[in-house]
C-alpha cells in the first residue's frame, strides 16, 4: 500500500470522507461513557470542590486539546513552509478552527468552574492569560489565512506566526510552576505520575479520547472543505486568465 499517494489532495479527499464516520461514531460513544462514569459512577463530591469538580472533565480535556492542536499546527506549518507541501499547509489552516474551538471551551468552562471555586469568573493570572493569548493566536491565524489571497504566501506568513506563537506553549504548561497563580498545579501530566484518584481519572481520560476523536472527525471534514476551496480558487484563476486572453 503506497501511503505517499495520500499526500495528494485529490487522493486524500475521498479517503477523508470515508474515514469521518469511523471517528465520529466512537467519539459520541466515548462522550456518553465519560458522562456515565463522571455523573453516575464517580463520587458525588470531591473535597472542597463539592459537585463542581464535574466541570473539570470537559475543562481539562478541552485545554489539553487546545495546546496539543497548536503543537500539531506548528509541525504542519513548519513542514509546509520548509518543503512547500500543499497538504501540510492545508492541514495547518484547517487545524486553526478546531484549535480555537477547544481553547475557547477551556476558557469558558474554566470561568464557570472558577466562579464558585475562586469567587470570580476571570483573574489575570499567568495560566489564564497565557491560554487567552493562545486563543487570540488561533483567531489571528484564522484571520491571516482569510486576509491573504495567494495560498502559498498565506502559508508562509501563517507558518512564521504559528512558530513564533509556539513560544507561548511552554509558558502555558509551566506557568503554574513559575509564578504564583490561582490555578491548580498539574495533577495528571506531571513528574512522578498522576495525583488524581482513578474514580476521577477514568472519566477525564475517556473524555480526552472522545475529544481527540471529535477533533479528527472535524479536522477531516474541514480538510475536505480546504481542498474544495483551493480547487475553486484555481478554477477562478483559470476563468480570469481565459477572460483576459
Amino acid at each position, binding site marked *: 500500500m503506497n501511503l505517499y499517494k495520500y499526500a495528494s489532495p485529490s487522493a486524500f479527499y475521498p479517503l477523508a470522507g470515508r474515514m469521518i464516520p469511523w471517528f465520529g461514531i466512537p467519539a459520541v460513544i466515548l462522550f456518553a461513557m465519560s458522562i456515565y462514569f463522571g455523573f*453516575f459512577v464517580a463520587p458525588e463530591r470531591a473535597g472542597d470542590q463539592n*459537585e463542581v469538580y464535574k466541570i473539570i472533565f470537559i475543562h481539562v480535556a478541552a485545554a489539553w486539546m487546545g495546546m496539543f492542536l497548536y503543537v500539531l499546527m506548528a509541525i504542519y506549518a513548519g513542514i509546509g513552509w520548509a518543503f512547500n507541501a500543499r497538504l501540510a499547509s492545508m492541514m495547518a489552516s484547517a487545524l486553526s*478552527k478546531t484549535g480555537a*474551538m477547544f481553547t475557547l471551551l477551556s476558557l469558558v468552562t474554566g470561568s464557570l468552574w472558577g466562579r464558585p471555586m475562586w469567587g470570580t469568573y476571570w483573574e489575570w493570572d499567568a495560566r489564564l492569560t497565557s491560554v487567552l493569548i493562545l486563543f487570540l493566536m488561533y483567531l489571528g491565524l484564522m484571520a491571516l489565512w482569510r486576509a491573504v489571497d495567494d495560498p502559498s504566501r498565506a502559508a508562509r506568513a501563517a507558518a512564521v506566526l504559528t512558530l513564533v506563537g509556539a513560544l507561548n506553549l511552554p509558558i502555558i504548561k509551566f506557568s503554574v510552576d513559575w509564578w504564583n497563580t490561582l490555578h491548580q498545579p498539574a495533577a495528571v501530566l506531571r513528574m512522578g505520575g498522576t495525583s488524581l484518584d482513578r474514580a476521577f481519572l477514568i472519566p477525564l481520560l475517556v473524555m480526552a479520547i472522545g475529544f481527540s476523536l471529535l477533533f479528527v472527525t472535524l479536522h477531516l471534514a474541514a480538510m475536505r472543505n480546504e481542498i474544495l476551496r483551493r*480547487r475553486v480558487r484555481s478554477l477562478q484563476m483559470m476563468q480570469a486568465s481565459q477572460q483576459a486572453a
Partner: protein
Amino acid sequence: MTSLGPYASFIVTSYTLVAAVVVLLIIWITIDYRHQKERLRELEASGITRRSGRQATDIR
C-alpha cells in the same frame, strides 16, 4: 443520577455550552462544504474545466 448540588447551574451550563459550540462548528463546516460545492458547480456551468480535463465537481 447523583445530585449536582447548589452549583448545578454552572455544571449544566458548562456541558450545554460545550455541546452548543461543537454543534455550531459542525453546522459551520457543513455550510462551508455546501458553499464550496455550489461555487464549483457554478464554475463548471460557466464552462471552466480543470487542466486534467476532468469535471470540477468530480470529487467525492
